[in-house]
């Protein structure tokens, strides 16, 4: 594969493992073992069985008739929102907890923004009977309250992080510090294609089930494996990595990621890393970052807690640089409008993150026969308060 990570853990100039020495034994062990573990038959059997019987995979590929009539083209929705726990995040946490067990780890830590990854991690920890600690920015604890309660009900300890902007970046700092403090019994389940090698590759592989399914599902629907367009939202970029993965080497498939512009890419209130960033090192990985000229990370902003991150996975930095994928910016308002439009046209309430992918439809011009796949990375239950506020403001009924 042309866009695969190299032996040293880089995608072109991006990636690597810029880790403190304290993390070296854990990262080295993971790096040396993840591919063997994941290709082993015991792992594969357990992973596939759980994806089918516990998560509910394959997730449907749904032909969205009214959306297609509205925007043109033949638009299909990949329904990751129908997974157990309500988003694509569980594909990764199922895989990583099986890896953690094989590494004989007994304690799991995670960071979370919107709470989707936190819930997915707390869920698999309950399933496997492992102790679970989730770091979450204090601002996100407040704005994603239902997910905090779910994690607690699942038995996880949720630790609010009070540093920085108190969002996803700060939660990640908290989890990394925990791992340095607990080097022996703990596995860190990173929720996106970020962090030190091998995480970006490992998470992309675990999420690649999404595009693997699309290939045969599209064959059933359309008699062809490859769509013309694939659209996905990008924060760290794990759902986009999963939905792009098996199309990366098919250049005729146009891949488009949508970043969160927040209030706009020319304001300071944005989380559009590729639109506004430059290369640097954060969270043990060299990638595109929002930063000032002194190398200090700029605090991001987005209405969507899951996209509110000043970095992006190194794979996406490389896809952006090489031009293999395109990335567009979507504002808070555009995402909100798209969420309501999808809800009224198809009866699907998307997560705010996923709504950023749908907002791109407003800016696209499709031919009648274009086949378009959009990843519905998560469902909107956790965002109901935001949506209710919008309805009250607009006096919608």
């Amino acid at each position: 594969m042309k866009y695969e990570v190299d032996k040293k853990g880089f995608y072109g100039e991006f990636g690597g493992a810029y880790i403190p020495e304290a993390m070296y034994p854990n990262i080295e062990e993971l790096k040396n073992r993840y591919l063997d573990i994941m290709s082993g038959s015991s792992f594969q059997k357990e992973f596939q069985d759980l994806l089918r019987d516990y998560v509910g995979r394959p997730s449907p590929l749904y032909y969205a008739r009214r959306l297609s009539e509205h925007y043109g083209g033949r638009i299909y929705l990949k329904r990751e929102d129908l997974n157990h726990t309500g988003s694509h995040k569980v594909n990764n946490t199922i895989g990583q907890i099986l890896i953690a067990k094989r590494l004989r780890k007994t304690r799991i830590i995670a960071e979370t923004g919107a709470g989707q990854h936190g819930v997915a991690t707390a869920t698999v920890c309950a399933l496997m009977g492992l102790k679970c600690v989730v770091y979450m920015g204090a601002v996100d604890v407040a704005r994603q309250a239902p997910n905090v309660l779910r994690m607690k009900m699942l038995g996880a300890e949720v630790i609010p992080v009070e540093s920085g902007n108190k969002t996803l970046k700060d939660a990640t700092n908290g989890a990394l510090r925990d791992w340095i403090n607990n080097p022996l019994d703990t596995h860190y389940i990173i929720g996106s294609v970020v962090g030190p090698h091998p995480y970006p590759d490992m998470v992309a592989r675990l999420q690649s089930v999404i595009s693997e399914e699309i290939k045969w599902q599209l064959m059933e629907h359309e008699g062809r494996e490859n769509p013309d367009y694939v659209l996905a939202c990008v924060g760290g970029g794990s759902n986009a990595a999963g939905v792009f993965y098996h199309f990366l080497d098919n250049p005729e498939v146009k891949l488009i990621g949508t970043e969160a512009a927040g209030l706009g890419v020319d304001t300071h209130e944005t989380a559009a890393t590729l639109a506004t960033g430059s290369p640097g090192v954060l969270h043990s990985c060299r990638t595109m970052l929002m930063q000032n000229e002194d190398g200090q990370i700029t605090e991001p902003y987005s209405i969507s807690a899951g996209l509110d991150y000043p970095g992006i996975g190194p794979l996406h930095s490389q896809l952006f640089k090489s031009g293999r994928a395109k990335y567009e910016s979507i504002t808070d308002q555009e995402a909100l409008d798209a969420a309501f439009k999808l809800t009224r046209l198809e009866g699907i309430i998307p997560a705010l993150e996923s709504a950023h992918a749908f907002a791109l439809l407003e800016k696209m011009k499709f031919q009648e026969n274009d086949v378009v796949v959009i990843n519905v990375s998560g469902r909107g239950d956790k965002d109901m308060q935001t949506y209710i506020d919008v309805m009250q403001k607009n006096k919608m009924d």
Partner: protein
Amino acid sequence: MNRIDTLFKKNKDILSIYFTAGHPTLNSTAEIIRTLVEEGVDMIEIGVPFSDPVADGPVIQQSTYKSLENGMSVKLLFEQLKDIRKTVDIPLLLMGYLNPALQYGIEEFCAKCAEVGIDGAILPDLPLEIYQEEYEAAFNRHGIHNIFLATPQTSDERYIQLDKHSGGFLYMVAASSITGAKTGFQDYQQKYFERIKNLDLKLPRVIGFGISTRETFEHACRYANGAIIGSAFVSALEKDGDMKKNIREFVRTIR
């Protein structure tokens, strides 16, 4: 000869102190250094603030945020240090995270260190392999030591490798933790100190993380050539009253 090498050749029981530049006030950097020198400290690590200090505990995190709020930057720090060698002879190191140095430019960073008289750098998130491949040449060109850290989880083989490539000394992290670790040593640390003492490393070792009192300092010195105090000193700087007096009082509690 690099001042770090000279120091370790002559002295033992080295007392090294860390503080964050730009904290407690933006322009306190030079005064803190001079006062520490007056008090007989052997070596100083000047912390370069970074917005996301993942290897640091609450005390150094807070000092970092304060410093950035005060307006500190790599550029300004070099400006503050430009005359420091007129009055200070002991080894001075910069300690911080990779990204600010990367954005400054590693070549320029090393050149500027040499120009103002910085002897070494400690960048905890720059691992050995990437250092060798990308940056070692620049450090060598400008005669700047790059010091590696090793922890209780670091294997003997890895310790020997780090010993081979570290510049001047090896930073021996005492605890499996971020900075500001609990003071006092547990059994596993004692065994670790002895394991490393028996490795017959070529470089001097300095122990840091969890050193905050005379007792822990002296204990560490039995297993290494000296010790580093960070969080405890940063806390002392935050006390009310005259800063110089606070510095003096703190150093005198150590030796």
